[in-house]
C-alpha cells in the first residue's frame, strides 16, 4: 500500500469532492462535513464514473408505510443507473450481496510528515504548515 498526497486540506472544504487518477486508477476524494472519504471512481455495475453522482440519504423501510431516511449525504448514487453505495464502506444498498464499490482509507496528516516521506509530496510542496489530505492505495 502506497500513501499518496491529494491536496492541502483547505483546498477540499466540506461539501466538495476532488477527482484524480493514481496509478491509472480513477479516484475521487470527498469532504463530507469535515470527514474525508475516498472511492474508486468506477461503478462495479457497468463502469460509470460513480463519484459524479449526487450524494443522497438512505431510504429504508422495515414495514409497509414506515420509511426511515438516514445517512444523509453519505450515499453516492451512480450517475447512470442510480445504484446506491455507502460512502463509508462502499457497501451497495441495491443488492448488497452482489456489488460493493471499492473504498479507500483517507486520512489527514500533518504536512511536515508528508513532505519528508518517500511518497508523492513533491508535486504538492506548497505550504508545509498546512495539513494535506492523503490517500492510501
Amino acid at each position: 500500500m502506497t500513501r499518496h498526497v491529494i491536496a492541502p486540506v483547505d483546498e477540499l472544504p466540506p461539501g466538495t469532492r476532488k477527482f484524480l487518477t493514481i496509478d491509472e486508477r480513477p479516484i475521487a476524494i470527498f469532504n463530507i462535513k469535515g470527514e474525508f472519504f475516498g472511492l474508486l471512481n468506477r461503478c462495479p455495475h457497468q463502469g460509470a464514473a460513480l463519484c459524479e453522482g449526487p450524494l443522497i440519504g438512505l431510504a429504508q423501510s422495515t414495514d409497509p408505510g414506515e420509511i426511515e431516511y438516514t445517512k444523509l449525504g453519505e450515499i453516492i448514487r451512480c450517475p447512470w443507473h442510480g445504484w446506491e453505495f455507502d460512502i463509508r464502506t462502499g457497501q451497495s444498498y441495491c443488492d448488497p450481496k452482489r456489488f460493493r464499490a471499492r473504498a479507500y482509507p483517507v486520512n489527514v496528516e500533518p504536512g511536515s510528515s508528508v513532505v519528508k516521506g518517500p511518497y508523492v509530496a513533491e508535486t504538492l510542496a506548497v505550504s508545509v504548515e498546512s495539513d494535506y489530505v492523503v490517500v492510501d492505495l
Partner: protein
Amino acid sequence: MNVQFRPEPSASVGVKTAIADCDIHPARAANDELYPFMAKRWHEHLVAYGKQAYHGMMEGPPYPKAQPNASRRDAWPPEGGPQGSSLSFMQKQLLDPYNVALGVLNPLNSGQGLRNQDLAGAICSAINDWQIEKWTSKDSRLKGSIVVANEDGVSAAAEIRKRAGDKNFVQVLLLSRNVEPLGQRRYWPIYEAAAEIGLPVGIHAFGFGGNPLTPSGWPSFYIEEMVGHAQCQQTVLASLVLEGVFERYPKLKMVMIEAGFGWAPSLGWRLDKNFERLHSEVPYLKRKPSEYIRDHIWWTTQPMEDPERRDHLFQVIEWIGWDKLLFATDYPHWDFDEPSRVLPAGVSDANREAFYLGNAKKLYGIA
C-alpha cells in the same frame, strides 16, 4: 449485467470492436433550433397557442423521471444545453470511445402526440431536416429516423415518401403509446409508405396517446412506467399481427425499441394457442401469429434482459433468433447499457458479431 463483481473490469470485451448503437436520442440545445426548418406561420402559432397534446394540457413527458431529462448525470455537454444536444460531446462520450460504426438517431420529443395534426406534421418534418443539418451530415456514422405525425396516416405517409432514397435515414419512427393500438387502420398508410420505400418501422417505448400508462389505469411509481413498456409493446405487437398488417404488407420490417424482448416467447405461445381456437375471427391470417413475429420483428437490446441464470437469456434469444437482436445503449438516457457489460460469456463469435453490429448493418442497409 448478469455478471459477477469484477474489481478490475476487463476493457477488452467488445470495447474496441466496432458496434452499432440502434437507439441514440439527439436533443435540441434550444427549441428555436427547429425554426429554420419551419414556416414562419408555425413560429407564431407556437408562441400564441403552444402545443396541445393528447395526454393533457401539459408539456413534457407524461410521467416524472428519476434523473434530469431521464439522462445520465455525466452527459451534460460542457458548452451547455440538455444531454444529447451536442454532437462533439456525443462523439467524445459515446461514438469514439465505444467505436460506434453505426448510430441510429431516435428523436423522441417531436411533433408526435399533438392534436393539431398540421402542427404535428410541421414539427416532425422540421425534425427530419434538423437531423440531417445538425447530425447526419456532420458525422457519417449517424443515421436518422423519419418522424411523422403518427395520428394522421395520410400526411405521415407523404412525409415518408418525401424522404424516399435519402441515405440520411434508415427507418421510420413511431412510439408505442398512441391513440389506438398500432395495428388499427388509421396507421396503415404509414406501413404502406415505409414498405414502399424499403425502410423498417421502429416502435420506441413511450408516447403521448392520452391513455393511462397501463391498461388498468394510472400507476403510482416511475418503476411501474419502466416495467409497463413491455406490457404496452405487447399490446402493440398483438394488434399489428392480429389486424393483419404483415399479411397486407409482407415486406414490412419492424423494430421493437427499448421495451425488452424476454416476453416475446410467452406472447407468441399465447397468441398461437388462442389462434388455434379463434382463427375464424381473423381468417385473413395465413400463418400462426408467432411466425409473423419471428419473420417481421427485430428487437433492440437495451435495457438488456438480466435473468439470474444466463441460460434462460440464451433460451429466449434462441426463440427470437440471434439474427434479430440489435445492440443499443439508449444514450444519453440514464438506463444506458455499456457495451462490454451486456452479453454474458458463452456466446459464439458469430452471434456476438451479429448482436453488436452485423444484424443492424443488414437491417438498415449499411455496407
